[in-house]
């Protein structure tokens, strides 16, 4: 489903990704683990199309199409979803208004026509209930003044609603207590399907106790250093990343 080939990315003069290759199949949950500052979030942002990164080499194919030249909203319409590590606060825009705008924009882009509002609100409320999100929050401005846990749940709620083909979860576990973590993981697990794939980016193994990955990739120095099954995560938990971070370490 997603095929990244020899991806090189820089910010200014600094090289962040240096020949990263990765493949995720439909139905697969792939985890990327790695030390801080190794380019995990850069990978997530580059796939989603954030400005400020220069792709100097390589490509990223979603269902066979290179998405790196597309606008962020075009990628979203093709089913790419990024759950942000730091969800952005948007004062003045009610959460419900935003959800409606996003869903309809994607539907329009896919030629599906807008969803009837009552229908949509029903779906949002149902999704909110499933994630233990207070429906009052839907009236508030998006993410503005939300707690860390509320923000992360809102990301998963959006994922549930937008039903992407390929979802990237960027450090979704950071800043969550154990109960919130479980709710978020349940939300992800409920969405697992054979025509959908996940790329779960995390620093700790903890999240992977709740979202069982099919494959685990170790990322360091801008590349995938090693690929294995779930057992690799446990090994990292025990030994840390020292085998991967630079020759000197």
């Amino acid at each position, binding site marked *: 489903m997603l095929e990244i080939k020899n991806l090189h990315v820089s910010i200014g003069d600094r090289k962040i990704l240096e020949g990263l290759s990765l493949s995720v199949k439909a139905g697969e949950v792939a985890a990327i683990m790695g030390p801080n500052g190794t380019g995990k979030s850069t990978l997530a942002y580059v796939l989603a199309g954030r400005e400020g990164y220069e792709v100097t080499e390589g490509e990223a194919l979603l269902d066979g199409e290179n998405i790196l030249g597309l606008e962020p909203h075009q990628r979203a319409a093709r089913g790419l979803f990024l759950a942000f590590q730091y969800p952005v606060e948007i004062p*003045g825009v009610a959460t419900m208004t935003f959800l409606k705008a996003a869903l309809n924009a994607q539907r329009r882009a896919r030629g599906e026509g807008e969803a009837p509002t009552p229908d949509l609100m029903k779906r949002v409320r149902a999704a909110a209930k499933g994630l233990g999100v207070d429906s009052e929050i839907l009236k508030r401005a998006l993410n503005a003044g939300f707690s860390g846990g509320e923000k992360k749940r809102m990301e998963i709620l*959006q994922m549930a609603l937008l039903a992407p083909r390929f979802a990237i979860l960027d450090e979704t576990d950071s800043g969550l207590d154990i109960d919130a973590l479980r709710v978020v993981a349940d939300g992800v697990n409920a969405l697992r399907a054979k025509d959908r794939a996940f790329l779960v980016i995390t620093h700790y193994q903890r999240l992977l106790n709740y979202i069982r990955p099919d494959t685990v990739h170790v990322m360091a120095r801008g590349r995938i250093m090693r690929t294995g099954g779930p057992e690799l995560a446990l090994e990292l938990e025990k030994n840390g990343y020292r085998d991967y971070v630079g020759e000197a370490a």
Partner: protein
Amino acid sequence: MSVQAIETQTPAEAALARSFAAMQDKGAAELRRAAWAAFSRKGLPNRRVEAWHYTDLRAALRVVAPLGDAPTQASPVLEKSRAVRLVVLDGFFRPDLSDLAALPDGVAAQSLRETLAGADADVLAALAPSGLGGDDAVVALNAALMQDGVVVRIAPGLHVARPLELAILTSGGPAHGACTRSLIVAGDGSKACVIERSKALAPSGAQENHALVFAVGSNCEIEHVARIAPQGDDAIRVYSLLLALAGNSDFKSFGLIEGGGLVRRQIFARFESEDSRVAFDGVSLLRARHHADITLFIDHASARCVSRERFRTILDGEATGVFQGKVVVRPGAQKTDGAMQSKALLLSEGAAMNSKPELEIFADDVVCGHGATCGRLDADQLFYLEARGLPRREAEGLLIEGFANEAIDNVSDEAAREEFSAALRAWLAARENNQ
């Protein structure tokens, strides 16, 4: 009685002096004379006057439009209003166009001219509250030249269910002037919503100087919403809101400015007694070469009062926005709580914004603050929306709406809030079409 001359008079000031000469016997002669004296000491405000630093009225006002001394014959057909409407057209109150019959019991409305003829000392005092806006040359000019207006009295304890609408209309045509002053006296314990709607039936280069005075009693709840519709590009308009607020009352005011030539909305508010709250909010939607100036003077003259101001300026084209807000806490006004915020969004290269939030504090047990930002749309917010599937233009539109909503959301009257949101969307759609 000779008319006092302004030193180094400009032709415009000379024309204003002639207007005053024609107006000085139209009731409230004392008040007019004192106001003219105050104006003529200062002349038209210009860059050197601190409160007018960013809006040089003397430079803008070259030729003064004449003021009519009687109502015009115009008899426009007005759309239906959900509110009880009082119409001031071309400077004069028009009972024939107003819904006087629909006024609820306990609400009285009278033209300013009639009121002045009665020369009730209390009304005169309420009409030009001493010290409130008195330093401002345009407020003084308004008192000297006022043609007419409406005086509304709301009986103590009355809760007015249907909003009152003050429609300040001009019929347009060749450059003309209008100078009105209206007064709303809210008796103790009353509750009301007042809609001020300023509109040109045919946009033109009008010169307008309108003052609206609120004398609000204790234990009141008053909401004021103003919509200042677009005017011709060479129009010059100043709207002054004067508020004298008694104790333990709530007053809030929202203003939407939709640009057109030069507009200044100035607010002078004073807490006459303790434990009251005010909220002033506003949105300015500017494009082309519009110039809009919001200037506030919030006088915490009493203890334990709360003031909140949230203003949003959205600038496109080569528009210029101005925000000046001065919060003064007088000696002894302890436990004052004041927070003021101005944010400006510059959507185009040619736009410019000037902000001057000001604190002047003479009491120590206070919590006061202000914030001012200006800049373009936030790149992180844009990316977040795009990553959720919104095309760039739509994402921008949603962010601009959200930006303005932060102020619009503070309007309590739901229909008014919806009207403002619709006006905002229309403005955005017009912007979209121009691109």
